[in-house]
């Protein structure tokens, strides 16, 4: 659906910012694809390059086979009508009612009054705002505003939806409901969704694949379950550390000089008594500091933070044993 070939973008001003330094990325059709990174990582620029709100300095971007950087003026506007976009701060027109906001892209696309009426009604139904059509944005909650944003983005029946930190301004409960709506839309309309976020939880809840962006480079990309359970890049490990230990840092977790391990189990491994086997076989002490069983979209996985006490060689053997049993081991304090 979308392909980035060595895309670069630099902003020069008082200080020069290399937002994107050679992005190569393929986003398959029909997926919910997440791009995660800290602020300043270049996510926002990456997303805006897809519909040319930002023009890359070099490299190419294909959307549905069309080389976007070739487009200009009229052609570009036509291509943009096939791509929906939603925003962190919703960006609704305050002077227009909900109905008029959803109708806006339809007006731009030259729909007839009658078609607009029908289309807005069905969209309002899809996002659950049928009773708010006459309200103005200021009368809506954040979640409702984002639903208007989604309805507006879907108005012209795009194949692609770009989400720019779409839930970052919402509370956790509203975030979940908006994410569920996006999931429904993705399944029902066979829509490809690209979302950028700095929140691991967003990726975890709805994404099929994820790309980790750091310092203008894609550090790694792949199915969420792989990246989250076996992060290869330093950047992903750094981001995941905080996420999977519910905000506790290794420093906070560690009280002794013992070895601190993060163990990750996927699928059926979560059900086997691997820890007790390890303790018995290698004669070490294990202290479980934190554990969780979570779900990556649909796949379950477990995570344990374990402190090991014993002789160094026993600990080394224990780690080997865990790895032999397909448990992902990360030593947090070496």
């Amino acid at each position, binding site marked *: 659906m979308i392909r980035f070939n060595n895309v670069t973008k630099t902003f020069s001003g008082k200080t020069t910012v290399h937002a994107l330094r050679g992005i190569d990325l393929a986003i398959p059709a029909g997926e919910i694809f997440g791009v995660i990174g800290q602020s300043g990582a270049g996510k926002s620029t990456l997303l805006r390059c897809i519909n040319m*709100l930002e023009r890359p300095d070099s490299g190419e971007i294909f959307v549905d086979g069309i080389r976007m950087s070739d487009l200009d003026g009229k052609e570009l506007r036509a291509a943009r*009508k096939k791509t929906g*976009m939603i925003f962190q*701060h919703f*960006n609704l*027109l305050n002077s227009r009612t909900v109905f008029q906001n959803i109708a806006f892209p339809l*007006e731009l696309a030259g729909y007839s009054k009658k078609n607009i009426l029908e289309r807005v009604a069905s969209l309002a139904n899809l996002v659950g705002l049928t009773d708010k059509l006459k309200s103005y944005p*200021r009368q809506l909650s954040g979640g409702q505003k984002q639903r208007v944003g989604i309805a507006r983005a879907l108005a012209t029946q795009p194949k692609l939806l*770009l989400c720019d930190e779409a839930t970052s301004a919402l509370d956790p409960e509203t975030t979940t409901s908006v994410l569920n709506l996006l999931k429904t839309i993705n399944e029902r309309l066979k829509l490809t969704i690209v979302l950028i976020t700095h929140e691991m939880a967003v990726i975890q809840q709805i994404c099929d694949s994820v790309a980790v962006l750091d310092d203008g480079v894609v550090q790694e990309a792949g199915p969420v379950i792989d990246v989250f359970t076996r992060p290869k890049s330093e950047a992903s490990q750094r981001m995941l550390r905080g996420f999977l230990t519910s905000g506790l840092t290794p420093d906070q977790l560690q009280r002794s000089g013992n070895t601190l391990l993060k163990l990750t189990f996927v699928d059926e491994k979560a059900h086997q008594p691997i820890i007790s086997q390890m303790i018995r076989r290698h004669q070490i002490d294990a202290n479980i500091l934190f554990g969780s069983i979570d779900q990556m979209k649909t796949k379950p996985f477990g995570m344990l933070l374990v402190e090991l006490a014993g002789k160094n060689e026993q600990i080394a053997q224990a780690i080997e044993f865990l790895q032999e049993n397909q448990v992902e081991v990360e030593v947090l304090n070496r």
Partner: protein
Amino acid sequence: MINQAMLSMLWDATLDTLIMVGSGTILATVVGLPAGILLTTTAPNHILEQPLLHRALGGIVNIGRSIPFIILMVAIIPFTRKLVGTSIGTAAAIVPLTVAAIPFVARLVDGALKEVDAGVIEAAESMGASPPQIIYKVMIPEALPALVLAVTLTAVNLIGYSAMAGSIGGGGLGDLAIRYGYQRFRGDIMLITVIILVILVQGIQMLGDKIAHKLYHHN
């Protein structure tokens, strides 16, 4: 003291002031609004980015705004004469009033349009809106309350300017106040003209506020 003739003079002067201010405001808006739109949209990173044009326009507006009205009025007398055939009277006063108000309107419009959330403009761009569509369907409607207040402020300002225009034979309340109130020591006429001016300013401001409030749907 205040006889029938005086009253009718006051009435005529009020009408003259309203005509001058009304025409000046309308004409200045007709020219100043597009100028203001151009000023905003040609700015760096805006939808019609044109740095040179932007700087030139900004320069012209600043020069226009820095010339004191009383000097501008005298300076453009030849131009006024060419345009209306005379430099005296209500019709002639409309010319300098308009010329003085155009850069004022342009700057106020620019200020109002700059307040339109860049995110909303970006959203419209993402939907494939063309620059004219963004101007007419996004920027102007979103800034409408502020634009109404800008026109209101212009009208109020022109009331003050029109009194100055009166001092060089422009007609209206300022003219009356100077000729009767000041030169003939008619304190009562002076007082009445001032009261009428205050009422006009109040009335225009209240009307503007009311319309702006009706149009306001922001937070």
